[in-house]
């Protein structure tokens, strides 16, 4: 088998990555453009950053986004973990098919439909029980929990399906009750998956625009909503600066966690090697 890639595959890789990263490079470089008409290069400048960081509306929207993302990711992680556990463990119960369908459907449901249907639900609820009165934090968070818990469920289901059941049985056997077993054994072992599930839910919530547009009200506008309204009106150099900040933040987070994970895996492998050698 020739290990070398053909020139065609190599070319596609180069072009593909250029396609994926080109716009980001352009965006970042324009954020340092002195010219207000961002398509013309007017020399290097960082002047858009202070303007951005003094913009009250941007700061409020960012704060709203973080609150919504953190709260909804937390609830979504709890529910998604439960749903993933149920799907991986309980092979047979009444309504399992319906349940697994319900869990995965929001993943593939077009956002406009999810958004509109949730909005209609809230309006209907308001007519019937007088709640939620108006759209805002509560409704956005409820909506975000609903669609991001599906992502957490997928992550947790695949984690639980490779979980060695005998670990739980061993704990029960040694006298730990089921709840204790879950808290002391199951949860700590699947903790990395829970964390990545939370991060996924957090990112998805932070990034969401369409569902938020339908279910949010005045006073709790998120960062994507703000960017969307600004961008729709035209180009705005502070958005470039904002985009650069977000990209830097996310990229450094993802890359750091990748490095940390690779390192701990390497250390683990070394430990295993060492353990084997000592015993020989």
């Amino acid at each position, binding site marked *: 088998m020739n290990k070398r890639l053909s020139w065609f595959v190599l070319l596609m890789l180069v072009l593909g990555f250029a396609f994926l990263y080109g716009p980001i490079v352009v965006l970042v470089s324009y954020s340092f453009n002195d010219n207000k008409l961002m398509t013309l290069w007017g020399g290097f400048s960082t002047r858009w950053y202070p303007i951005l960081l003094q913009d009250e509306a941007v700061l409020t929207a960012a704060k709203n986004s973080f609150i919504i993302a953190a709260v909804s990711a937390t609830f979504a992680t709890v529910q998604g973990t439960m749903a993933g556990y149920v799907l991986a463990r309980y092979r047979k119960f009444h309504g399992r098919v319906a349940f697994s369908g319900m869990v995965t459907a929001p993943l593939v449901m077009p956002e406009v439909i999810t958004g509109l*249907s949730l909005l209609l639900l809230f309006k209907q609820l308001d007519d019937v029980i007088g709640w939620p009165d108006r759209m805002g934090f509560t409704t956005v968070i409820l909506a975000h929990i609903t669609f991001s818990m599906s992502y957490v469920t997928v992550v947790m289901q695949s984690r639980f*399906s490779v979980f060695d059941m005998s670990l739980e049985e061993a704990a029960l056997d040694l006298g730990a009750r089921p709840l204790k077993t879950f808290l002391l054994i199951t949860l700590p072992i699947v903790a990395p998956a829970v964390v990545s599930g939370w991060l996924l839910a957090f990112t998805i919530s932070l990034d969401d625009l369409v569902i938020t547009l339908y279910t949010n009200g005045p006073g709790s506008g998120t960062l994507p909503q703000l960017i969307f309204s600004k961008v729709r009106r035209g180009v705005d150099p502070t958005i470039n600066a904002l985009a650069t900040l977000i990209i830097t933040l996310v990229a450094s987070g993802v890359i750091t966690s990748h490095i940390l994970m690779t390192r701990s895996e390497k250390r683990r492998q070394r430990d295993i090697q060492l353990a084997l050698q000592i015993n020989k």
Partner: protein
Amino acid sequence: MASDVPQQTSLPLGGQIRSILIALGFKPRTAVILVPYLWLTIFFVVPCIIILKISFAQTVIAQPPYTPMFGPESVPHDQLFDNFKRLFQDSLYYKAYLNSLNLAFFSTLICLLIGYPMAYGIARCSPSTRALLLLAIILPFWTSFLIRVYAWKSILSKEGVVNDLLLGLGIIDEPLLILYTPAAMYIGVVYTYLPFMILPLYANLEKMDLSLLEAAADLGCRPLKAFCVITIPLSLPGIIAGALLVFIPAVGEYVIPELLGGPNALMIGKVVADEFFQNRDWPMASAVAVAILIILVIPIMAFQYFQGKAQEAPK
């Protein structure tokens, strides 16, 4: 030390509560199932029923702005499907559906044509390079989708990088109008959803048994032919998963047409929003949304089916 007699008499309080609940036929596992089950019923199933219900109503100037399902003011039976009939009669609607399906279909095709060689290339790299390239594919997914679409807005504009480049190279004399054309939307959709195509393809190609290709070569099959008769058929599940992951969200796409397609782009996701927010026609907006769902029901079921198979497989 475990005691001789099971401690039936001196159960702690928690144990007593537990035994009472169990005696009532309520097991802890029921609670674990019930919480997410109820949540999804209230916030996913019920909204779907509501949207279906409203799609049969007619708009009225009232609060709520549609006719009730039952009672004297409800829609007469012969007018129940009026909203859906309008979808076929009014060119605004069916053109929007056709445009959206077109956009989704060709974007999926382009994603496959770009994504397949890339996924193939990554899967054939050494493990360390592979991890790095995979990270590079996933990274854009973690960064804001909106920002990445916005980036194209300036790149494709009349004074943008693309035109600068083409003018500078002397390929064109006049700046091209790309922004606010269908081409811009295709670029936006392909750009946004390319990782969704590559990842399932990669997952499939990576675990493919290379000895199959060796066997084919051994039996006298040329590399290109081996690729066509072995690699592609075997990667079909990956192709299907990737295509569905691109196609389904692309049909209902709202943001990309809104930002890159310009004011005249007639896309179905936009029609829903306009009907609801601009015209305040809830029944029509619901009918348009229900129709999207009807179109997508087969792709969604297909995806669920393949997803289910993939989940059961590694056991």
